[in-house]
C-alpha cells in the first residue's frame, strides 16, 4: 500500500494539481482550478485522441489474431521446443524499443521488398508507399506489443487440460465445436489480459507514430510529448494525460463489464 501511495497516488495527485494550473513557463504557473485546460484539450485534439484509440484498437485486434494460433501451437504442440519457442517470442525485447521501430523503417522502405511486392500485386498503386502512413504506425505498434499479447495467451492456453478437449470430442463435438465450447472459453482470461496489456500502452505510444507515421498520423502521445518538451505547457500536457487515462479506464470498464469480470480472475462460469 505504501508502495502504491508513493509511486502511484502521489505522482498522480501532482499531475492532477498541475493539470489545473494556468500560466506559462516564462511567468510561472499558478493553481487556479483551470478546468479550461481539459475542455481545450478535448476541443483542439479530438482527432488525435480518436486516432490513438483507433490505432491501438486495430493493433490489439491484429495482435490477438496473430498471437492466438502461435500461442495455441506452442501450448499444445510445442512439446520439448516450448521454451525455445517462447524465447523466440520474447527475443525482440532484448533489442531496444527504438531500434526495433527504426528497423521497420527499413522493412517498409519505399524501395524495399514489402512495398515492391504489394505494388506488384496491385494492392498498392505504383506511387504508393507504406512509410509515413497509418498502416505503418499500426504495423509498428502491433509488432512492438505482440509479446504482451502472446505471453498471457500462452499461459492460459497452457493451463487448459487437454483431457477436457478429448472429452468434448468423445461426446461427438467436432474439432471446431470443441474449440469454440471448451478451449476458447477457457483461454478467455488470457485473451482479456493480453488485450488490456496491449491496448493500454499502445494507446499512449508515440514512438511509432513519430518514426513511422506522417504528419496526419500523430497520436495523442505525440501531442503530450510536444506540449511537455517543446512548448513547456505542462498544465495542458497533464490535462491530456488525464483525459487519456480516463478514456482508457472507461474502455477497460466497459470491456470487463461486457466480457464479465469472472473471466478476468479465471473463475469458471
Amino acid at each position, binding site marked *: 500500500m*505504501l508502495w502504491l*501511495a*508513493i509511486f502511484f497516488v*502521489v505522482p498522480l*495527485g*501532482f499531475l492532477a*494539481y498541475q493539470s489545473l*494550473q494556468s*500560466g*506559462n*513557463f*516564462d*511567468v*510561472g*504557473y*499558478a*493553481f487556479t482550478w483551470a478546468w479550461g485546460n481539459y475542455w481545450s484539450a478535448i476541443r*483542439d485534439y479530438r*482527432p*488525435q485522441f480518436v486516432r490513438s484509440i483507433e490505432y491501438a484498437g486495430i493493433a490489439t485486434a491484429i495482435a490477438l489474431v496473430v498471437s492466438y494460433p502461435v500461442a495455441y501451437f506452442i501450448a499444445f504442440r510445442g512439446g520439448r521446443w516450448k521454451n525455445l519457442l517462447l524465447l523466440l517470442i520474447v527475443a525482440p525485447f532484448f533489442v531496444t524499443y527504438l531500434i526495433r521501430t527504426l528497423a521497420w*523503417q*527499413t522493412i517498409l*522502405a*519505399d*524501395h524495399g521488398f514489402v512495398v515492391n511486392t504489394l505494388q506488384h500485386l496491385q494492392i498498392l498503386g505504383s*506511387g504508393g*508507399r507504406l*512509410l*509515413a502512413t497509418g498502416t505503418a504506425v499500426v504495423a509498428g505498434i502491433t509488432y512492438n506489443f505482440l509479446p504482451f499479447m502472446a505471453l498471457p495467451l500462452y499461459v492460459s492456453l497452457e493451463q487448459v487440460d487437454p483431457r477436457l478437449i478429448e472429452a468434448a470430442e468423445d461426446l461427438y463435438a467436432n474439432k471446431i465445436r470443441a474449440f469454440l465450447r471448451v478451449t476458447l472459453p477457457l483461454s478467455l482470461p488470457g485473451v482479456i489480459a493480453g488485450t488490456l496489456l496491449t491496448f493500454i500502452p499502445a494507446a499512449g505510444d508515440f514512438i511509432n507514430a513519430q*518514426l513511422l*507515421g*506522417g*504528419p*496526419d*498520423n*500523430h497520436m495523442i502521445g*505525440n*501531442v503530450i510529448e*510536444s*506540449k*511537455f*518538451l*517543446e*512548448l*513547456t*505547457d505542462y498544465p495542458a500536457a497533464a490535462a491530456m494525460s488525464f483525459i487519456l487515462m480516463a478514456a482508457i479506464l472507461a474502455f477497460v470498464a466497459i470491456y470487463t463489464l461486457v466480457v464479465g469480470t469472472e473471466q478476468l480472475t479465471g473463475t469458471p462460469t
Partner: protein
Amino acid sequence: MTDRITRKTFIRRAAASGSLLTVPGLLAACGGGGGGGGGTSSGATTQQLAKTLHFSNWTLYMDVNKKKHTFPSLIAFQQKYGMHVDYVEDINDNAGFFGKIQGQLSRGQSIGRDIIVLTDNDRYLGLMLEKGWAEKLDKSAIPNMKNLVDVQKHPSFDPNRDYTLPWQSGMTGIAYNDTQTDPVLSVDELLESPKLKGKITCLNSMGDALTLVMLSNGDDPAKVTDKSFNAAFNRVKKAADNHQIRQFTGNDYAPPLARGDLTAAMSWSGDIAQLGNPHLHWNVPKDGGAIWTDNMLIPTGGNVYSASFYMNYVYDPKVQGLMEAGDPKRDITGIYYIPPVKGAGEWAKKFNPPVAKNQLIFPSAETLDSVHIFDNAALNNEKYLTEWNNLISG
C-alpha cells in the same frame, strides 16, 4: 514565480500529511548526486583547474579518431593542462535536453555539468539566460575570445557575450539525392513541385523551416510580423495538408534521404558534409538559407574557471583548425560544421586541404551573405509556437 512557491508548499504540505517524505528527498538526492560529480563548489571562480570538466554536447560534435575511438583534441588538452574532460554527447534536441535539466535548475540545483551547448534558433538558449540559470564567463581566462568572428560578437540574446560562446555554426538549406531527382534548389520546388510529392521532409524546428519559407516569400526572417508568419505558416500547412511534405523531422531525415525514400529534404549542412555520400548534395536555396549557432554556456553550479579555461583552448585557431578539419595523416576526422574562430581556416589548410576548401565547412563570404538568422522574439511567441507545434504534430 508563484508557481515555484506553490509547488514547494504543495510538496511540503504533502510531506507533512504523512508517508511522502521520501519524494522531495529523492529529488534532492538526484540533484545532489549530479552536483557532487562536478567536484566543485557551486559557481566558484577559483583560479584553479578542477580535476574533471563535465561537458555535455550534441552527438557527432567533436573531432574523433575513428580507429582508436578517442577524441584527440580532448586528449591533447588533458595532457597539456592535466584536467580530464568528461565528455558526453547526450544532447539530441534543445527542447528535450532543456526538459531534462529545467527541474533541477529551477530548484537552484547544479546539473553536474560545467559546459552545455544550446542552439540560438530555438527559444531555450535565451530562456536559460533570462531565468538566470547560466554562470557568467570568466573572460580573464579567455584571452582567445579576441578570435571570435565578428558576426557573432553581439547576438541579441547575449549582447556582450557575457554568458555564452559559440561552439559551431551550421546552415539550413536543401539537400537532395541525385539518384532520385534533378537538382532541387528552391523552396518553391521543394514545397510545390508535383514530382516531389510525398518525397520531401520539412524540419520540425520552427526557426529553421520558417526562415527558408519567409525568404522564398520575399519576407525578412529577422523581423517576423503576423503577416509574414501567417504567409509562411500557411504555405507549409498547405504543403503538409496536400501530402507534399511526408514528415516533419529533426536530423532523422538523413538515412531515408541516403536510402532514396526521400528525394529532397530541408537539411542542415553539417549532416550532409559528415555523411560524405557522393549522391547527396546540399545547397543554400535560391532565395537564401538560414544560419544558426550552437553556444556553449556554463549552467548554474558549473565550475566557471575550468569551463572558461577550456573555452579558451578551443578558441586557439590552431586547435580549432584541427578540430574542424581533422587530419587524415593522424586518423583524425573533423567536426565539419562551421567554426566561429578567426584563423581556424588557415590552420585547416595545413591539416586537411580538401576539407578546408569545402564550402559547407569554410563557407565563402558570399555564401555567408546569403544565410539569415531568425527573429529571436518570434521564437518566444507563444501563439506562433503553439500553431507551429499543432501543425507538426498532426
